[in-house]
């Protein structure tokens, strides 16, 4: 388990990370999302002990990560920029890492490289972007990490490579209970694989939840009570004419209309929605599950007001 408590970080007087708390459970695939410049990379750098936080603690299974080789040997970090690896071949890097990581498994590297069809004697800098990432993943999985920290690892890679890498992550998670923290802009993809989501804006956490809980809390509704008998569509049909707010019993976060159809974003349980339908008896009622992207945009929108 990774526990981040009251962590802040400033650069040249600019508060990049502002008093954040994060909890990553063991075996979780934890998605870190946020707008550009929100502080994701800074957070990941602090998680790996590459950057030191100004205040607060970052603990891996109760031990501080900063300058702690015992933790760092069980951790593999893939940054967005792979410049460090450039001049070396996969074989040279394998030799280097085999001495640094006690759980180094050459057989795993062999299998993964075969699967990816990479040339072991080619310099990393001479590979395509996709192959470079594959190489770094292959090397990483061979170290048998308990923690995998990824900074936008697969954004910009082709679908086949992405699928391969997700399989590796899921297999390691299922087989060894590996914990993954991954940041990405591709919310649609993250939604398919993460069990927890942490959303950052301006260095602050504005969502940190189990993904399914997050999605079952907020709903998008399409409701109509029918249009005016005379032919012109009312905003809320006959209900509006009586002057009663039909939605008063719902926790409405946002509302807009198109003709006689109302669209609402509500925070209510399924039972509360069932009760609403039974009492108000709308002509049209559709509950549309929100995607992670929509929840993110909506929450961000609300927060910025």
């Amino acid at each position: 388990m990774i526990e981040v408590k009251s962590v802040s970080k400033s650069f040249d007087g600019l508060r990049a990370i502002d008093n954040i708390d994060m909890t990553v459970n063991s075996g979780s695939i934890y998605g870190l999302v946020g707008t550009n410049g929100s502080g994701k990379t800074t957070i990941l750098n602090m998680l790996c002990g590459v950057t030191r936080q100004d205040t607060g603690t970052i603990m891996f299974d109760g031990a501080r990560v900063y300058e702690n080789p015992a933790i760092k040997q069980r951790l593999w970090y893939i940054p967005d920029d792979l410049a460090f690896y450039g001049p070396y071949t996969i074989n040279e890097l394998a030799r280097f890492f085999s001495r640094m990581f006690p759980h180094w498994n050459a057989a795993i590297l062999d299998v993964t490289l075969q699967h990816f069809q990479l040339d072991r004697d080619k310099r990393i800098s001479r590979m395509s972007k996709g192959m470079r990432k594959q190489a770094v993943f292959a090397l990483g999985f061979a170290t048998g990490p308990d923690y995998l920290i990824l900074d936008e690892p697969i954004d910009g890679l082709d679908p086949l490579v992405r699928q391969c890498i997700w399989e590796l992550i899921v297999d390691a998670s299922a087989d060894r209970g590996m914990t993954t923290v991954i940041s990405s802009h591709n919310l649609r993809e993250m939604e398919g694989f993460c069990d927890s989501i942490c959303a950052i804006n301006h260095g602050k956490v504005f969502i940190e939840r189990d993904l399914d809980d997050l999605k079952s809390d907020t709903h998008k509704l399409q409701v109509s009570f029918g249009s005016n008998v005379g032919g012109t569509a009312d905003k809320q049909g006959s209900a509006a004419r009586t002057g009663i707010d039909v939605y008063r019993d719902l926790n409405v976060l946002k509302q807009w209309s198109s003709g006689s159809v109302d669209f609402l974003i509500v925070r209510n349980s399924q039972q509360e929605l069932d009760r609403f339908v039974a009492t108000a008896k709308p002509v049209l009622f559709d509950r549309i599950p929100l995607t992670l992207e929509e929840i993110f945009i909506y929450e961000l929108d609300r927060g910025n007001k």
Partner: protein
Amino acid sequence: MIDIDLKSRKSIYEQVIFGIKEQILSGVIAPDSKLPSVRELSKQLTVNPNTVQKAFRELESQGYIYTVSGVGSFAYAPQDITPDDGLINETRSKLADSLRELRLLIPDRQVFARMVDELVQTVEPKLTSVDRAAAAHANHAKVKGDAR
């Protein structure tokens, strides 16, 4: 194999639960047969193992599967399961949607009603001769009643 649609608005968790329920109720997963382990299934589908774990827990609490400690999870027989209201409501909704679509294609009310009747007949298990006689008698009484 359960069909997971990553593009669907339905969460992976819901899709896994629904997929397994369907397979158990239809007999694809035979009664008392062992389900793949959480590990195996998550690798087969390339789905987060925590999600599969949650789905298995929910299926157990809803009475679709039972767990033998140290061995694995097993399916109950369809007759020993009470299909939950959630599943019934969901399937009803889908049926209502399809009926609405069909109605738009068949403007004639009586033609539509007849077609729906026929469909219901094809879905019903075959009646025995005793049931058929009882049904015919009941129908005859209704026709006489309507005529008054």
